[in-house]
């Protein structure tokens, strides 16, 4: 009985791999762009510019305070009402990029705040400008605080990417939905779906843990 279904599932394997590829594409693009934006916003949030700070802060709060599924629906179904038509794929990437940027922004802010104020004062006193302070003194130290939760956040975001299946992006989750209609073995089908996510996420979880250990040790020769 199970053997039969497993065989059927094997037939669908190329379909699953295509879905996996889609999940990797949506998450990959969103994480890269979201990381860049998240650092930019985090740096703005830690700066002296009150207006920009408040704007970014409000946006981050809105995004963190609403369900991702609703954000995806707004971008995909509601923006067209205002004349902005998007395919499912770009809509998914935009939604996930924005989500990533907002969560990463908060991680970056926490990292920058963890650097003692005296470090900035020392840098100011020697005449370094704002960018030089950030680039040479603040960020290298903040990165030690930022990296472990950043990688942890990547895991959460990759898992959140399954939400975009709701607007028809054929990612692993969507492939699961489509397959279960032909192979009525939910446990088996979604077991495979879960396994595929786990295969991507597990190395990242390990990486996050090892970064945590590495970063909490002191600064000495040869280390970060």
């Amino acid at each position, binding site marked *: 009985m199970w053997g039969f279904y497993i065989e059927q599932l094997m037939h669908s394997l190329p379909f699953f791999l295509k879905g996996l590829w889609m999940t990797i594409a949506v998450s990959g693009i969103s994480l890269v762009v979201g990381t860049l934006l998240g650092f930019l916003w985090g740096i703005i949030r830690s700066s002296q510019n009150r207006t920009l700070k408040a704007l970014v802060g409000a946006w981050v709060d809105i995004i963190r305070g609403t369900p991702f599924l609703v954000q995806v629906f707004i971008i995909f179904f509601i923006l067209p009402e205002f004349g902005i038509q998007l395919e499912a794929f770009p809509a998914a990437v935009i939604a996930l990029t924005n989500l990533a940027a907002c969560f990463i922004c908060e991680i970056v802010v926490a990292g920058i705040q963890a650097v003692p104020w005296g470090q900035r004062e020392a840098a*100011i*006193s*020697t*005449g*370094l*400008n704002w960018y030089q302070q950030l680039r040479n003194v603040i960020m290298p*130290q903040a990165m030690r605080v930022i990296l472990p939760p950043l990688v942890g956040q990547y895991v959460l975001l990759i898992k959140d990417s399954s939400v975009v299946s709701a607007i028809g992006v054929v990612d692993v989750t969507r492939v699961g939905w489509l397959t279960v209609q032909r192979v009525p073995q939910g446990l088996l089908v979604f077991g495979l779906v879960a396994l595929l996510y786990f295969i991507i996420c597990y190395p990242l979880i390990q990486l996050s843990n090892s970064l945590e250990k590495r970063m909490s040790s002191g*600064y000495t*020769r040869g280390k970060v």
Partner: protein
Amino acid sequence: MERYSVQRAMIEFKNVHKWFGDLHVLKDINLEVAQAEVMVVCGPSGSGKSTLIRSINRLEPIQKGELVVDAMKVHDPKTNMTKLRAEIGFVFQQFNLYPHMTALQNVTLAPMKVRKIARKEADDMGRYSLEKVGLGDKLHQYPAQLSGGQQQRVAIARGLCMRPKIMLFDEPTSALDPEMINEVLEVMRNLAREGMTMIVVTHEMGFAREVSHRVAFMDFGELTEIAPPGEFFSHPKSERTKLFLSKILTH
């Protein structure tokens, strides 16, 4: 010891005021520090000593009065502070070394970034500065691998490497174990001997007596007494100064 002869005004406070919210921390400060002068500032905790010297490189902006340093108007918001800050070395109580950089990297960062000096030349300057504070053999150590006294000397070298005209010290020995205080004071003595303009906030009265040209007493945001060390210690004018001196000299 021989004291460098005192010349033109390098730092000039004129009716300077500063508030933190409602708190009036600098009250009508008037002070001239001449080139090559060594001035020691002492006074009770919270009296505004740190704020006073931090205003000189605008780590703390002042709200009223005039503050002219090396002919540049620090009180004027339009003044470009980068150039002036490059001329002023600042040494903090807590060292504030960059923990992710070696001693040499700590010392050469600003010369390379601010003065745009090439790495090789900056390294030579850095090595020279570190040798000058007696740390020629610690170039590639990280701050965490150095003792407190050594860290503070690296911090002094970081200031010196910019070839500053002025060095400011905010309680440079207060965070140190007693046995390390002298190695730091020795470096500062040498600087004074070479004619560096210095303001030193410290309670090391031996240093004040031996090295400084004048000692100032700060109390509740005011400079209540300024005198050469001999006079300052033997004939303090106000009761508050006497009380303060009796407290710290017996310790």
